[in-house]
């Protein structure tokens, strides 16, 4: 029986439900020192002095490093994604001259216990000379605001415009132009496991083993190798010059990289790098020195990660703290451990989505949407996330803003503004506010034209008859862009009679009912030209490699470069491998998270890539190994390879199962030195396969006009991610994403005061929704197959969060529109609901922002 397509129970559960998983906080190398960071209490200030003398005498303290000390032994983190007009500040491991946010790390205390390290951190005396703070976008855009980064243009790090089609002509000739300003609030990923890193130092060799809560094990490895623990360049060069094998290995690797990514490299344009270097010449200097030093290193860290307590993008970033910890560990020659606390996590564990979006639609009176103009400003926070953050979100928004609709023209201006707040990171569907703003204004347009939200969408949306087509912004659309089919199915699932009766009942009882919908498609993995539309050549980042092995004893092991942190890869990949190899799920072992064993991938897990790319790589690797096994078995059984069947691990000639061989018998017949009888490495980019993942979300809200609380009596998603590996796991991904969207609109907001002091640093203030707030979300499936691809799995991790804020806010406006409400903010707590309903006066209620 095929396992793919079934809700196979999770393999990882046995360990995790018994409490025998191993998360980073559970790792304690012998003699490990516990790290606590001394963090700024000011949002913006110069550091005058640091006095760690008293702290150093505190019991249990082994060493205290100031920012200046750590930075002298490490390189600043350099920009990865360089876009034309983007300046990315170089980030030091710890701040040494000035602080740019509350929580900015300025020193690190290492002690024998965490409690002792915390005691000592309290005693470190830092004298600050306060500067004016930039608490928000509006202040950051003012020319007289205090400047965070002296090499930036004021506080604007990026100001770039893109135009697709004849925007002016379209806007001039359309019957009307409808404009709205939307504002989305600061949110946080908030995995229940905070960040954490243990740097284990081998006392004999000095080799580093990094135990990380990371979504991207290989990036963490190379980030630490590149930035932590400076050596002398001269030594590096000498080592490189004298070691022939190293030189040869490097040249081979470089050649392989340039050959593998020839297309991408050819397309990548250098305007981004030129702009960055013009703004900050030291970028080039650091890059060269760091590069030379990497070449001379003898030994690179190993990253090991087993169980990870969620990430949602926040653990895709390599932290400044990681660099500081590794630098300290190298210097001391001792293992160090840092487990972030929740206050640190809410302050700087990752923020996202604080964006102002002005959007105009050029539309004809018959409802034909012809043009779109967007002015996006992102509140970037103080420090850029490494390797990617706000700049990537804006680049993806630029591509995805037109959505599934046939616009004739589109233009977008994007700005990133530095503020004295926590860093902006990728958060589940990092570009999601393009869907929010677009789907929000489409409802506004529909109301103005007296059309229904469904009617105007259906009128303007691409359908299967249009395929193949292309988005205005570049990416090809094929049949897998089935958003219209999901909308049509959603419309069927809405019970109009029930809705009408509920609505009447609500209104009779001081409540209001509303229905909202939202439609989107996401690249999962997208067509081959999708990455180039974001940034030419960026496709090189999304390669995946897998390796399948049959060992001499017949055991089957699959190695993935994915980094599971809740997505259940151990189950879904075993399903894929087991089907290919003709064995049961318990016969397959998945290896992940150990960079000495797993193949390289730049990104790890994120971006809805696990199904299509990681899954595709492992499927084709396994298929090839099955072929090798069948060949060997054919010769052993004196049969043709085409006649070999493998069922339940019995490798036999078709029709003669009684004379079959086991994997152990076939593998045992192969002479091997390394214990691997059969193996295959598979690089995979999803070219020609896969495509788009699509959905329509429908939300019903029931609003109490007395308390301003919003109930959600029904929420459903019609999604199409093609063939599903494990339906229960896909449904779980969708529901989890929607739950985060509900949290975002109704409960969660990372608030700062006018001096940029964070106000929501505990779960008493940053409200995480619980079982009593989240409705039971229905998930309905469509299954559109891609026209060309055999590997048709499509990603589904981001989608829930992309659709939900739009569907919920549309429902709320629908409910309250008869009272004159217009929803332009994404955050709608009870006070805001009552303001929208005209029950309380926004000018007289305070503190609702």
């Amino acid at each position, binding site marked *: 029986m095929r396992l793919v397509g079934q809700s196979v129970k999770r393999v990882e559960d*046995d360990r995790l*439900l018994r*409490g025998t998983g191993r998360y980073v906080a559970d790792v304690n190398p012998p003699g490990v020192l516990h790290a606590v960071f001394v963090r700024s209490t000011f949002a913006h200030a110069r550091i005058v002095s640091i006095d760690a003398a008293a702290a150093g005498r505190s019991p249990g303290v082994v060493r205290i490093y100031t920012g200046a000390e750590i930075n002298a032994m490490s390189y600043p983190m350099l920009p990865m994604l360089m876009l034309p007009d983007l300046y990315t500040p170089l980030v030091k491991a710890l701040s040494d001259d000035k602080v740019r946010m509350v929580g900015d790390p300025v020193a690190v205390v290492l002690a024998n216990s965490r409690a002792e390290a915390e005691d000592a951190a309290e005693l470190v005396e830092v004298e600050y000379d306060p500067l004016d703070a930039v608490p928000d976008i509006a202040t950051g855009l003012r020319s007289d605001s205090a400047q965070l980064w002296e090499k930036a243009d004021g506080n604007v790090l990026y100001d770039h415009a893109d135009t697709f089609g004849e925007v002016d002509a379209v806007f001039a000739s359309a019957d009307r132009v409808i404009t709205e300003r939307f504002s989305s609030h600061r949110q946080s990923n908030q995995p229940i496991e905070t960040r954490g890193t243990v740097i284990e130092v081998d006392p004999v060799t000095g080799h580093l083993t990094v135990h990380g809560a990371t979504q991207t094990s290989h990036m963490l490895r190379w980030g630490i190798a590149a930035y932590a623990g400076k050596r002398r360049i001269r030594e590096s060069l000498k080592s490189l010059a004298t070691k022939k094998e190293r030189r040869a290995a490097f040249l081979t690797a470089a050649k392989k990289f340039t050959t593998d990514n020839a297309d991408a490299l050819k397309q990548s344009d250098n305007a981004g790098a030129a702009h960055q270097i013009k703004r900050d010449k030291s970028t080039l200097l650091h890059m060269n020195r760091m590069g030379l030093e990497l070449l001379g290193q003898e030994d690179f860290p190993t990253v090991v990660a087993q169980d990870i307590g969620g990430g949602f993008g926040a653990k895709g970033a390599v932290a400044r703290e990681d660099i500081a910890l590794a630098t300290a560990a190298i210097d001391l020659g001792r293992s160090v451990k840092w487990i972030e606390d929740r206050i640190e996590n809410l302050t700087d564990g990752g923020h996202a989505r604080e964006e102002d979006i002005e959007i105009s639609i050029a539309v004809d009176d018959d409802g034909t949407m012809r043009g779109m103009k967007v002015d996006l400003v992102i509140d970037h926070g103080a420090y850029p996330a490494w390797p990617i953050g706000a700049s990537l979100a804006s680049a993806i928004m630029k591509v995805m803003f037109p959505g599934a609709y046939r616009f004739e023209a589109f233009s977008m201006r994007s700005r990133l503004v530095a503020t004295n707040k926590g860093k902006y990171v990728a958060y589940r569907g990092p570009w999601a506010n393009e869907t929010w703003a677009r789907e929000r204004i489409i409802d506004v347009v529909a109301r103005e034209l007296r059309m229904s939200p469904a009617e105007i969408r259906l009128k303007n949306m691409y359908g299967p008859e249009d395929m193949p087509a292309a988005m205005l912004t570049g990416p090809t659309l094929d049949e897998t862009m089935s958003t219209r089919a999901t909308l049509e199915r959603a419309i069927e699932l809405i019970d109009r009679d029930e809705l009408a009766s509920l609505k009447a009942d609500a209104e009779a009882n001081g409540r209001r009912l509303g229905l909202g919908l939202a439609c989107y498609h996401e690249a999962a993995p997208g067509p081959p030209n999708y990455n180039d539309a974001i940034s030419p050549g960026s496709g090189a980042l999304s390669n995946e490699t897998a390796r399948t092995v049959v060992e001499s004893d017949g055991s089957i092991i699959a190695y993935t470069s994915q980094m599971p942190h809740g997505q259940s890869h151990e189950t879904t990949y075993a399903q894929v491998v087991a089907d290919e190899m003709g064995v049961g799920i318990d016969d397959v072992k998945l290896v992940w998270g150990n960079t000495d064993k797993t193949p390289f991938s730049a990104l790890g897990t994120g971006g809805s890539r696990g199904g299509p790319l990681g899954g595709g790589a492992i499927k084709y690797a396994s298929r090839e190994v099955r072929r090798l096994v069948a060949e060997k078995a054919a010769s052993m059984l004196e049969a043709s390879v085409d006649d070999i069947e493998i069922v339940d691990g019995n490798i036999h000639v078709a029709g003669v199962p009684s004379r079959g061989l086991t994997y152990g018998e076939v593998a045992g017949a192969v002479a091997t030195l390394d214990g691997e009888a059969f193996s295959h490495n598979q690089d995979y980019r999803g070219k020609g396969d896969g495509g788009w993942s699509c959905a329509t979300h429908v939300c019903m809200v029931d609003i109490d006009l007395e308390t301003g609380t919003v109930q959600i009596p029904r929420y459903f998603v019609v999604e199409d991610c093609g063939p599903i590996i494990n339906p229960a796991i896909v449904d779980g991904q969708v529901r989890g994403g929607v739950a985060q969207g509900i949290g975002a609109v109704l409960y969660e907001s990372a608030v700062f005061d006018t001096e940029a002091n964070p106000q929501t640093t505990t779960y008493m203030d940053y409200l995480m929704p619980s079982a009593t707030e*989240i409705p039971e979300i229905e998930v309905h499936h469509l299954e559109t197959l891609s026209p060309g691809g055999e590997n048709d799995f499509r990603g589904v991790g981001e989608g829930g969060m992309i659709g939900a804020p739009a569907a919920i806010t549309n429902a709320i406006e629908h409910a309250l529109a008869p009272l004159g409400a217009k929803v332009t903010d994404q955050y709608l707590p009870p006070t805001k609901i009552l303001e929208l309903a005209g029950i309380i006066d926004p000018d007289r209620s305070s503190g609702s922002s």
Partner: protein
Amino acid sequence: MSEPTVITMLINGAPATIEVEPRTSLADLIREELGLTGTHLGCEHGVCGACTILVDGEPVRSCLMLGVQADGKNITTIEGLADPISGEMHPIQKGMHEAHGFQCSFCAPGFLMSAVALLEDNPNPTRDQIREELGGNVCRCTGYKTILDGVEAAVSIKSGDNTSSTNLAAEVDR
């Protein structure tokens, strides 16, 4: 700083005598001193519920209780749920497995212990009662539906009534 105290407690059925600093939380005692890392710390201020354990059968946030307060108490953690001899999972563990209850599972120890306490008090809770009782635990991955399903599956498994758990499996398998 005051001197360490020696306390005695029953942990997952086994007696333990241990020296503990007065300021050490029960969660840290269990994780660091006793090496039972199945109990997780999510917020360390009593909101997320990941560190929930049973103290004399009652659910307690182990991050908000001091180790010294556990003197003379009977403590159960996630490691104490399965049968100590056969290793067979507790019905709540089986129910969660059946229902695809968790994803990253960092919150799981707290939910499992809260659910065990719920089912001790109320062996046949309604869905709304389950929702209400688990309202003090936060999960960021699942949207909660499968966790509620998991408790219902545990009820069926406990009562030996496999029909509803089979139905649930069938529904999940659709």
